[in-house]
């Protein structure tokens, strides 16, 4: 049998190249100042999905929520072997925290309908919360296995996976459908040249319209024709607005996000003064005292 696997991925600012303008005064990330990349652990999730496709046969659908140009991570997924893609994009999604994000993704999963597995990267390098995957499982009422390193077996009723725990690993089994979050334990495959040459032409509706903007033949019929042509060649990236995804607008974006940023600080790590403590009872007592006072302990 063939499985349907959804992989949710995120386009993130490349935090390896952080500059002074990385954050905006309101405490949100200044995405314009940083190059956008495929979130690293989401590539691990995609790799795991593609390995399952190679081993057991599966249709891999990759979804993301983001601005219109987040379609780039979907093309990147197609280069590596994804079968279908969907982009959730809408101003109503903007400013979402993990609660609003997992809600939007749950709408997307419901819209896709039948699936056996949802895979997410453990966490994104911009927020580092590791909450979206688990929250999504809760919203869809799915069993979840987090911190997955590899899938041991998959059959039509259950999945058995190895997950990392402190100091070792454990093997868990779950009925399907299930959600798994994946850690940096595999080697994501590079884009395949022939797929790159083909899927570089994959487009969303927004991109199709932008391509023909200003031309005098942008009537609905022409665009419809182009769209059908792209669909026929599997070069179509589905685009869903909040309403098309069936989302309740009260629960999306900034509106649906209870997280409030209280304060942001620019923390500069540097060596400061040091204090020498003698290895005596007295010295240790004074150290403990200081740590408790400092709220480092207790």
């Amino acid at each position, binding site marked *: 049998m063939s499985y349907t696997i959804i992989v949710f991925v995120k386009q993130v600012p490349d935090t390896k190249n952080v500059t002074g303008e990385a954050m905006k005064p309101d405490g949100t990330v200044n995405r314009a100042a940083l190059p956008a990349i495929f979130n690293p652990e989401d590539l691990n999730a995609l790799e795991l999905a593609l390995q399952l496709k190679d081993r057991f046969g599966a249709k891999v659908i990759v979804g993301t929520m983001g601005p219109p140009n987040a379609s780039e991570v979907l093309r990147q997924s197609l280069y590596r072997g994804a079968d279908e893609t969907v982009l959730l994009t809408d101003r109503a999604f903007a400013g979402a925290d993990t609660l609003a994000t997992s809600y939007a993704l749950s709408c997307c999963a419901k819209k896709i309908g039948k699936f056996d597995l949802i895979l997410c990267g453990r966490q994104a390098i911009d927020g580092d919360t590791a909450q979206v995957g688990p929250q999504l499982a809760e919203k869809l009422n799915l069993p979840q296995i987090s911190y997955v390193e590899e899938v041991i077996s998959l059959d039509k009723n259950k999945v058995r996976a190895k997950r990392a725990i402190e100091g070792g690993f454990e093997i868990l089994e779950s009925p399907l459908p299930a959600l798994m979050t994946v850690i940096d334990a595999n080697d994501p495959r*590079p884009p395949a040249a022939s797929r790159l*040459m083909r899927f570089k032409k994959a487009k969303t509706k927004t991109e199709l319209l932008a391509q023909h903007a200003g031309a005098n033949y942008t009537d609905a019929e022409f665009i419809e024709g182009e769209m059908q042509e792209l669909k026929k060649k599997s070069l179509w990236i589905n685009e869903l607005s909040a309403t098309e995804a069936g989302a309740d607008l009260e629960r999306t974006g900034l509106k649906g996000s209870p997280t409030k940023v209280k304060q942001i600080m620019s923390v500069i790590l540097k060596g400061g003064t040091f204090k020498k403590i003698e290895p005596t009872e007295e010295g240790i007592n004074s150290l403990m005292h200081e740590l408790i006072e400092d709220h480092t302990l207790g």
Partner: protein
Amino acid sequence: MSNFFTDNKDLQFTLANLDLEEVVALREEKYAESKKYDHAPVDYKDAMDSYRRVLEVIGEITGERIEPRSRQIDEEGPHFENGVVTYHPLTQKNIQDLRNAGVMGVMLPYKYGGLNLPNTVYTMMTEMVSRADASLQNLFGLQDISETIYDFGTEEQKTKYLPQFATGEADGSMDLTEPDSGSDLQSVRLKASFDPKTGQWYLDGMKRFITNGCAKIHLVLARSEEGTSDGRGLSMFICEACPQLVVRRIEHKLGIHGVATCELQYNHVPAQLCGQKRRGLTKYVMSLMNGARVAISGQALGIAEASYREAKKYAAEREQFKSPIDKFPAVYDMLTRMKIKILASRTLLYETTKHVDLRACYVKKFENLPEGQVNEELREKQKYYSKVAAVLTPMSKALCTEVANQVAYDTIQIHGGTGFMHDFNAERYYRDARITNIYEGTTQLQVVAAIGGVIQRTLDPLIKKLSSLPYQGVLERMARELEKMHKKHLEAVKFVAEKKDSKYHDLMARNLVENETYIYVGYLMLRDALKNPAREVLAEKYVLYAVPEFNFRHEVVMSNDFSTIDKHRDIVDY
């Protein structure tokens, strides 16, 4: 993040400015292929965009994945036990990455699972792979084997083998060298015998120094005509790994440690003839070697690039006498020369691959003409490009591989004592570079291959075209220098040709080929500078370096000095 394509300004310049329009239109059958294959380009712009994107992917794989693994591979190498070669786990990972990227059969037609890429783009990949790990190139670069099967094999052989090569499922080796037949392949002895009862060929004998001799599919040069002793008794065969084909040992080498170099014993190995009998050496191996020579040029250039970058970095970081050493004239002079040599090698190499591409396209087109149809224009074109490619290929190989050695040598010099130690990469590049001007024909043999074209002035039409470009200012002054050199060079060629003394001709051949290279590459550098003013200084420096080198060689040629010919024994034996 390092990307060996996007961090290389010169390579990107080359791709953007090398006009491949004719090549691509021919290869893509005027873009009709795009109607049959989803990934085929619809026009030139689309093709160039795809090439650039694919090169970026290879740039990332080589920079991010392959290079960091190269040191350990060099130290540990492949493993050989009980006749079985096992590649280093990291080498296997490298191959897996390249396979996943789908670039193990890039020049093959779409029909067989390939990407139909021009040799030019493939050579750019070669360069990047070699910059990351020179030994890996000896596995990646075996694509010439599938090209040979494509060019000369039967349809059945193509359908059977090519898709395996394209996916990377099968690897290959070309089994030419024998213990007593290295440069002189005409004397190959491995015996091919035909059994009329089974209708099957069998191979018996030995091969030595076979790169990746543990491969699944072998192209073998063997003597099919009993009683013959020259090249016309040799044919090309395809055989597969089997118990009768024994790997006896793998070599312990100075460099390119990552790849296994095998000694093979053939104990009645079943084989198929590839192409026609008796044309094994004269046609097929020559074609195979020409492809491999371009690949080795790319390998050498990749090593030179890697080596140069280490030298540059070290010279900027190393402080002596309270100053980074790259502030000292003796050091920055070395760096400048190294860089100019690399740029010169690159412009010649890709001018070569472009002509190799044109030759391949026109030869194919000419051969595919319906029987009885004559097309004089096509005949002329394929003849012309074959002639030019036959000069440029050995010229490129000689230049790139000698430059790689010089650059790797100077990189150690810049590192000083540190460079002599294993802790830095400098010594690895030095070891890896050393084979490039030996295998697939030594530099001395490249000179033999190129000198005919130099005497016949094959490149003069190209030189003429380049010399008439609208140079101004410093470029015009440099063009005049090249013009002077060209005039003197013609005299020297005439001088040697009219002497009709084969020993003097052979002795002076290298000087003549090198002087031809100085002139031709000089013009290429000027042409490139026309496209980008920042390159004017590069062209100027190239010509200024070339003038005294040229004059020195010119003087030697014109000296009429026979003392080496007459008295070398007295000196050698003293």
